[in-house]
């Protein structure tokens, strides 16, 4: 049987998603979800939409949602495409711009799904190592690149590159630049205006994080109309279901609540970061709803893998990366509610004192 598959797929290893325990007994600080549920108005709209109209296929043009996105972000709706999570949009982008063997560049470490998506397409991944401080690598403009991915803020470091550097990169590279702004609402950044200044810019966003809609899978991307037209050619027609369309529209109508939640997350992040420094961690300057904490020298004798396991025993999930080596002494911690953060800190204090 295996010889029937496309070669690149037969050769691939499977993708292992992050832990998603479906019971509620955990404090989940491992998958960068928003601890604050969407506003009641969004939930009500969504519950109301669970009705007989679900028998109908969704609007393949997502006409209403794209018009709303256009208004909110001051972008022409011809410059917008929506997807079944930004994961789907990343996939559509790869299919649109990179054929087999073509180079796709990204600074590393970064969002872990770029590599599997590149492998599925049979394109060539060209990871470029981030410096220790996660500033822009000098050699990111790789000749002949078809796509360059830049998660900004980056995962798992949470660090943000300024607009001027992103714009300069966009002007310098071969192929398209994809700025993945999954976490941008937790920062002061934002690169949407790139698409008016550069023909090769794509800005991708998601409602999974700041809008508290991870379970509804809503992504959207902004790009010059010419690029959107091409991406549209390979999009599954009914990619975004009716419920997600409703949720996304309602979320945009209640965008102030999202901003308030994001502000709260940023406050908690600052408090958590300060306390982690005091406990002996090094914490990168995060502009996201998570932070990356390294076991500092004063914590000799402790290691990240053990802390991860000990926290899990206490039903607190954080993210531990065995690989790459530069992350093996780090924990990535999503920003929860204040109470969840207090519980995490109390557990850490106890574990580190032991």
């Amino acid at each position, binding site marked *: 049987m295996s010889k029937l598959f496309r070669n690149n797929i037969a050769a691939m290893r499977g993708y292992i998603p992050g832990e*998603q325990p479906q019971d509620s007994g955990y404090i989940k600080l491992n998958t960068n979800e928003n601890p604050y*549920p969407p506003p009641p108005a969004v939930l009500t709209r969504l519950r109301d939409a*669970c009705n007989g109209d679900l028998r109908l296929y969704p*609007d393949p043009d997502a006409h209403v949602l794209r018009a709303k996105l256009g208004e909110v972000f001051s972008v022409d709706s011809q410059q917008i495409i929506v997807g079944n999570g930004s994961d789907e949009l990343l996939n559509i982008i790869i299919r649109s711009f990179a054929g087999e063997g073509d180079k796709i560049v990204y600074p590393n470490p970064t969002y872990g799904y770029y590599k599997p998506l590149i492998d599925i397409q049979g394109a060539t991944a060209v990871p470029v190592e981030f410096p220790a401080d996660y500033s822009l690598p000098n050699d990111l403009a790789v000749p002949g690149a078809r796509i360059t991915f830049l998660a900004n803020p980056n995962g798992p470091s949470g660090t943000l590159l300024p607009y001027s550097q992103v714009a300069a990169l966009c002007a310098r590279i071969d192929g*398209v630049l994809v700025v993945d702004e999954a976490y941008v609402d937790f920062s002061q950044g934002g690169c949407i205006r790139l698409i008016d200044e550069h023909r090769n810019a794509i800005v991708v966003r998601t409602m999974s994080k700041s809008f508290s809609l991870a379970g509804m899978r809503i992504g959207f991307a902004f790009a010059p109309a010419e690029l959107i037209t091409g991406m549209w050619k390979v999009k599954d027609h009914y990619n975004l279901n009716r419920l997600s369309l409703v949720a996304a529209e309602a979320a945009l109508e209640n965008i102030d609540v999202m901003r308030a939640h994001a502000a709260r997350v940023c406050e908690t992040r600052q408090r958590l970061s300060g306390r982690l420094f005091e406990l002996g961690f090094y914490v990168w300057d995060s502009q996201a709803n998570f932070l990356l904490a390294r076991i500092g020298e004063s914590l000799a004798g402790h290691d990240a893998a053990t802390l991860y396991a000990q926290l899990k025993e206490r039903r607190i999930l954080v993210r531990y990366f065995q690989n790459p080596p530069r992350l093996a002494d780090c924990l990535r911690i999503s920003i929860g509610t204040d109470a969840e953060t207090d519980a995490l800190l109390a557990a850490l204090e106890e574990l580190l004192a032991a």
Partner: protein
Amino acid sequence: MSVERSFTRIVESLPPTIPFVAPEALERQRGRALQLRIGANESNFGLSPMARAAMVQAVDKIHWYNDPEGFELRQALAAELDVDMSAVALGAGIDELLGLMVRLFVEPGETVVTSFGAYPTFNYHVEGYGGVLHKAPYREDREDLDALLALAQKVQPKLVYVANPDNPMGTWQNADALQNFIEALPSASILLLDEAYVDFAPEEALLPLAPDGARVVRLRTFSKAHGMAGARIGYAVADKEIIAALDKIRNHFGVNRVAQAGALASLADRAFVLSVVKQVEEGKKAYAALARELGIEMIPSATNFVALDIGSGERARALLQALLARDVFVRMPGVAPLDRCIRLTVGPATERKVFAEILREVLPQVG
């Protein structure tokens, strides 16, 4: 930077057109709402109340990612079908799964076999991945297994597509004939058996689920009898090696939290699906009677839609336009000789009555 030839050659070569115009687009073009939306084979019998309740409840947790393994739903499907869970994969509708199957098996330039006039979304995906389509004609309004087999033997395709029951004609194959067909396929070919309408099919059309190792992928959906097209959820049943490979490339979080909950509940509500199937049966009888009354032929259907034979492509197209002028959305097959038919979804009695009245009025106008 250079954006000249930004797109891949495959994408560059694709037409900007989509296989069909959505009813929403029709409404926008015409600036007027449709009165009857019976062109896309959506179920007009709504949603199971149990599914609805489960979905409303699932909304509570939407700030969390959904289960990427779709564990509970796959477990329930496996139990229902009496197969191992490792033989079942979820997708955002059959449409998404068709694309993934092409991606799994077909390299650019490799061949795929289907029928002239068969489900266009499959062709869309094949072209989108740079595959080369070979088509066999229908025979007597059914996909012609003999012709498909002869073509497969000639072009040695990676994939062969058959819908059973069929869309757009609504006809079906007997399980025995399909079994023989599968056994005779070239050893490097996989059969994609699209069973979107299986809930409406007669016993004789039901192919038993194949044992492990078979080169058959069964594709099913909650879009039709379960009335959940808008939630986007379908599944594939196949050899576990195929499912494991699919797992490498699928959109792992692609079936949203609310859809998973709804499908699980709908699956448990057998009475609901049975009642939908029964009402569709009644509806088909009513449309058969209407066809007799108007002196047109209705093709026997094993689906939730019927094809009415209007005599010629020209007449069918004229009727489609005349119906649209009356705010009735139906579709028709794209190629001759199937295009002598219009295809309409079978809905409840109230809807059928409105359609019957309009058809009686407009049919004489198309000459």
